[in-house]
């Protein structure tokens, strides 16, 4: 596929801030029409990568292309960008501000105004159209911010941590809107440190940790590839068939025993041994690992914080 097939393509991108390397040798692409998740702990380089895609930062090495060319202003106009650090003009009325945001992206004033009120309706905020932004709750402000991102019908949505700060109900609302956009052909890239969110939404994921890419590909094939590594078993009778050269370690999860196989090992061998033994096998299940497990497996347990949520050495973005 040439660059035109990709909404976004990064090649060998490196960005340093002084002595700190925020992104290192990053190759990454988002094919048009997909929903793609950029995953990684805080401080792993997600926001820096996104800012380079938006042309706000420039890579020290490597190249960034947006719709097959430099991320200049004419291409950026086709992008709806929700930055991680969000802000609104505090003293401005909501509808006026949205109209302004549409206008600076080339939407006609009257049209922008109409679209903004439609969206406010859709997200249940029409009563707040004439209120000042700082009269709104945090969640409402975030919804307003999202509306501001999509008023110009962008071909590509880049959402940096769009779900953070939203309650579960509004997370669902946002999720369904993202799906709607995808159904209409919009390409979507979002970053998150919430793995389950990515799991529900993404076609493709790219995981980064400590400024480097860890894993990248289609969610389905990633999971299929990882699936052969873990087997959940339940049985009655002797257990001597379980341990063999194929099994690296075992772990009790949810009442069942999970066998983690060595690389290249075939689960069929274990199953055969079990059938030939005295044991009654009740369950022999290839477990689909969660993204979280995949991430841990590839980034190492070091990248996972105490709360089970991956976190990095440089909290606070960048």
């Amino acid at each position, binding site marked *: 596929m040439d660059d035109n097939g990709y909404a976004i393509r990064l090649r060998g991108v490196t960005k340093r801030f002084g002595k700190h390397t925020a992104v290192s040798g990053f190759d990454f692409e988002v094919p048009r029409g997909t929903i793609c998740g950029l995953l990684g702990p805080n401080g792993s380089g997600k926001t820096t990568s996104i800012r380079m895609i938006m042309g706000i930062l420039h890579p020290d090495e490597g190249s960034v292309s947006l719709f097959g060319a430099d991320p200049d202003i004419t291409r950026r106009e086709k992008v709806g*960008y929700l930055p991680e650090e969000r*802000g*609104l*003009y505090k003293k401005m009325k909501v509808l006026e501000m949205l109209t302004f945001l549409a206008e*600076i992206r080339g939407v006609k004033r009257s049209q922008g105004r109409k679209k903004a009120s439609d969206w406010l309706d859709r997200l249940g905020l029409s009563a707040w159209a004439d209120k000042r932004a700082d009269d709104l709750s945090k969640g409402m402000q975030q919804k307003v911010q999202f509306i501001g991102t999509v008023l110009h019908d962008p071909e590509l949505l880049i959402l940096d941590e769009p779900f953070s700060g939203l309650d579960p109900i509004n997370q669902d609302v946002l999720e369904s809107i993202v799906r709607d956009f995808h159904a209409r052909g919009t390409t979507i890239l979002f970053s998150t440190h919430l793995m389950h969110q990515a799991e529900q939404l993404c076609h493709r994921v790219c995981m980064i940790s400590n400024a480097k890419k860890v894993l990248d590909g289609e969610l389905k094939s990633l999971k299929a590839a990882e699936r052969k590594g873990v087997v959940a078993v339940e049985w009655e009778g002797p257990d001597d068939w379980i341990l063999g050269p194929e099994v690296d370690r075992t772990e009790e999860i949810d009442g069942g025993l999970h066998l983690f196989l060595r690389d290249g090992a075939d689960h069929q061998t274990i199953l055969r041994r079990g059938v030939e033994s005295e044991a009654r096998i009740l369950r022999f299940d290839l477990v689909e690992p969660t993204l979280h497990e995949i991430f841990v497996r590839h980034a190492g347990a070091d990248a996972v914080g105490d709360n089970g949520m991956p976190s990095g050495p440089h909290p606070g973005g960048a």
Partner: protein
Amino acid sequence: MWNNVLAVVRREYLQRVRSKWFLIATIGGPVFMIGVTVVPIYFAERGQQEARNIAIVDGTDVLYERVAPGFEAAGYTVHSVPWSADVMSGLRQQATDGDLGGFLMLDELTLQTGEATLYATDRPSAIRRISLESTVTRSALEYQLEQQGIDAASLLSGGDLRIEMLQEDGAGAGEPQFMVAYIGAFFLYMVILLYSVAVMRATLEEKTSRVVEVIISSMKPWHLLLGKIVGVGAVGLTQMGVWLLSGALITSAGIPMLIASRPDVSGLDEIQGLLPGFGMLTLFMGFFILGFFMFSSLYAAVGAMCSTDEEAQQAQVPVMMFLIIPIMFVMNVIQNPMTPLSTGLSLFPLFSPVLMWSRVASGASVPAWQVALSFVLMIGAVFAIAWVAGRIYKVGILMAGKRPTVPELWRWVREA
């Protein structure tokens, strides 16, 4: 592309013009000016009205006709009361009853020393007192000189020192021009500072509220900066437009009305002569616009490199010096507008608005080419400053954390 600049201009303009503070300052400004200039004149005279009926007891028989015109000119009505032994107690009674504002006692001693006593119900103002005092001493002096055969009256009333300038160039400002030049220079300093700081605050607000990242993703930083400056500048022009219009109304209608209603208040018509004409106003606006463009770009850069109000307060000091230094020179420049120092300082673009204005308004014949040159230099400076400040702005608005050092700033300018 220009549409989004226009959108920024419109937002910046409407947000400000619609605010309460704009209304208060715009309407309050002229009201305040009228308050501090016209009203005191009106009331200062009025307060003395009741006490103006004065009796003059002339014990010398020669002073009354000399003193009376002076008191009348000062706004008193006077009548002569002949001397008698109990005259004072009678007049005292009249004053206590409110029939008399006071009485003046003139006697032989007055003729010798100029001393006299005014018994008054209301204390006269200091200025009035001086004028009354000189009326009395002058009357005494006139009488004494006349006794010696000297025509004191024409000598004393005819005094006038006419000034003829030998060399036009050496002329410092006369008093009316001095006021126009000085007030104008100070006003320029104020409005340039006021609106430039507004640009700085707007930049800082966008930065701290993180709005800027969204906006920068859809327009060039340079366009955002331009829109902001033009928008705030337009607010400034609107405000001054309102002030000028109300000023013109006051002078063309208000002052003549005031003169007509209070013929007894002298000096009002002189105020009109002091007011700058259309040419001067145009020049003033020119200096404001270019000065504002230069300083607002600098202030925007300051706003962009800071993260908090407190930081910005400190960081703006070096920029503000370029406004304060010319203000320190204003007096000197107005009094000596044609010296090489004045000429040189007034041609330095950042000083031109305050100092070139001062020179021209001082009434000196500043060559037209110098004024033209200062405008050319200022326009050049606008572009140069915009180039540098625009680069600092571009990098700064997305920076968080501590303020950059000067070498870092230089790197921003080179690399942006």
